[in-house]
């Protein structure tokens, strides 16, 4: 095994010192030599390499750096060592410009300004994106031959059919929770029977659709962003453009249509599952038989509740799909961006859905659909 790198300082006759290096000046055996050479304070005039057994570029760099900072002369370098020294010495001529590092106050201001600009440009770009999608819809309506039915059906499957299991289970459990909490609270007033009102009105009007929207945003909105973002990185979208395929037509419209059409269906399904869950709890805990439950449900739940849900669902679907596709299109550069934009798509979609839901709630109350 080779010896570790080592050096000795010796005084020269005419003043100054000579460094006598020995052992292997290679990356694996360099040990603490770097720090010790840096800390040298003596006036080094010469560096003797004649006892060095083996050298690689790291060793050569250390010798070169020491020689340069102290102005010492290198002696006793063999053929390989001189070649290595020559190779690394070129790196001096090109100094790395230091990375710009402004003071933290300036950086803070710059970051605030940067985010404001980003927010506004993103808003503008989103409007532009919505415009593109609407335009693409019109063009497709004029030329139905260009419409990609196959893609739409595929997305029906992804957004709708494959979500049935998880959305059904989630809604069923939420129905149980609503019924259970309602029963506990209403029992204090002896009004357990109103649990049915709570289940019927809440699921059709609000929770069925809202929970479905959140689940679809998490399942499909994120998938849209990731799919389109990856296609962006692998230049598939650029390839489409050069062939004359409009990405908004080929990628965005099928996804938006699939989400718009699947959301109401999933919403109804989720509401039904929640009612089944709630009914089951009423039957077991409150001892209300299913027939009575259904009859009472029909009496207390107005048809408008159903229509409110059906009006909201396609709007939510469109928002989720648009946010997902838009964020996917925003991906630039590297793989990390795909993750960031996917997260942004889900957060944005859920936020917009809840804001709009609040708006719808007030709107429908005002027009008298109580």
């Amino acid at each position, binding site marked *: 095994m080779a010896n570790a790198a080592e050096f000795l300082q010796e005084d020269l006759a005419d003043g100054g010192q000579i460094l006598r290096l020995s052992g292997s000046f290679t990356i694996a055996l360099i040990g603490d030599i770097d720090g010790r050479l840096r800390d040298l304070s003596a006036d080094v005039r010469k560096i003797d390499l004649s006892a060095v057994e083996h050298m690689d*570029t790291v060793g050569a760099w250390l010798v070169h750096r020491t020689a340069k900072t102290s102005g010492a002369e290198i002696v006793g370098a063999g053929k390989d060592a001189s070649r290595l020294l020559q190779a690394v010495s070129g790196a001096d001529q090109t100094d790395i410009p230091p990375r710009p590092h402004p003071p933290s106050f300036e950086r803070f201001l710059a970051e605030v300004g940067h985010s404001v600009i980003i927010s506004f440009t993103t808003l503008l770009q989103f409007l532009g994106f919505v415009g593109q999608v609407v335009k693409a819809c019109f063009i497709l309506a004029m030329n139905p031959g260009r419409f990609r039915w196959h893609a739409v059906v595929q997305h029906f499957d992804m957004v709708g059919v494959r979500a049935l299991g998880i959305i059904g289970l989630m809604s069923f459990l939420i129905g149980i929770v609503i019924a259970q909490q309602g029963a506990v609270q209403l029992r204090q007033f002896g009004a357990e029977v109103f649990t049915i009102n709570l289940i019927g009105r809440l699921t059709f009007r609000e929770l069925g659709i809202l929970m479905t929207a959140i689940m679809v945003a998490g399942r499909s909105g994120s998938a849209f962003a990731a799919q389109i973002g990856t296609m962006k990185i692998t230049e598939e979208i650029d390839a489409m453009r050069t062939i004359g395929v409009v990405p908004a037509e080929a990628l965005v419209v099928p996804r938006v249509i699939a989400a718009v059409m699947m959301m109401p269906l999933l919403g109804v399904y989720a509401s039904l599952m929640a009612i089944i869950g709630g009914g089951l709890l009423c039957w077991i805990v409150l001892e209300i038989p299913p027939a009575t439950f259904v009859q009472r449900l029909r009496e207390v739940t107005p048809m408008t509740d159903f229509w409110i849900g059906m009006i909201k669902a396609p709007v939510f679907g469109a928002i989720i799909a648009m946010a997902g596709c838009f964020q996917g299109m925003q991906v630039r*550069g590297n793989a990390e961006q795909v993750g960031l934009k996917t997260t942004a798509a889900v957060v944005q979609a859920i936020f917009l859905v809840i804001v709009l839901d609040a708006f719808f709630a007030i709107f429908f109350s005002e027009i008298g659909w109580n």
Partner: protein
Amino acid sequence: MDQPNIISVQGLCNSFGEQIIHQDLNLEVRRGEILGVVGGSGTGKSVLMRSIIGLQEPVAGKIRVFDEGMIGKEEDEASDVRRRWGVLFQGGALFSTLTVAENVQVPLREFYPDFSKALLDEIAHYKIYLSGLPADAAHKFPSELSGGMRKRAGLARALAIDPELLFLDEPTAGLDPISAANFDNLTRDLKETLGLTVFLITHDLDTLYAICDRVAVIADKKVIAVGAIEELLAIDHPWINEYFSGPRGRAARRGHDKHNNPQPHLHQPGRS
């Protein structure tokens, strides 16, 4: 040194499902040589490299690198071998969230955690210089580099820990001829300066003629011939004949001869 063959592959078999890639493939790479590996598309050149560096589990066979068996080794095993090799992947495979300088420092930090920040910066600096990148590329992210620069940055990272063995997967593919020639010269210089052994997968005939000491030809699921190009030319195999004696092969050979013997015509009587 300790052994003449740095890599030895014996009886290697690889298959993906029904499709057999390698059957009973043997190959040896000697210390200090540049071994070029050629073969048609889909003959399993990259799979061979991936098997050697432990990314692909072969169905059968023995692979020894620096006299250590590599089959079935996990990422955290065989670190003595891993710190002696560097790998350049086809697309550079740079870590996209790190700058070029940070990319170069990743293997250094992994294998030599005691190095000071200042030394890491200095090493990254001269490696970037050695790989032929401009100094201001150090703080750029891979997405800000061109394809050729990404390859050079990948080479800088592969060379970070002063490896004895370098794997290059199509280093000159996609480069312009000038960059490709520079890359060839760089590889040869590094080999001579650092005493590297290079395992080089390539389609580039100019590279083969310019820098390879020996060439291994993969066809029919095995290495059908290994040797200097002159020796390969003497072999009668349809793929080898077509490869080296096709129009591109002949052009590369002419270019090589001209390069070595700049005025061949003057010695031929009756041509002026």
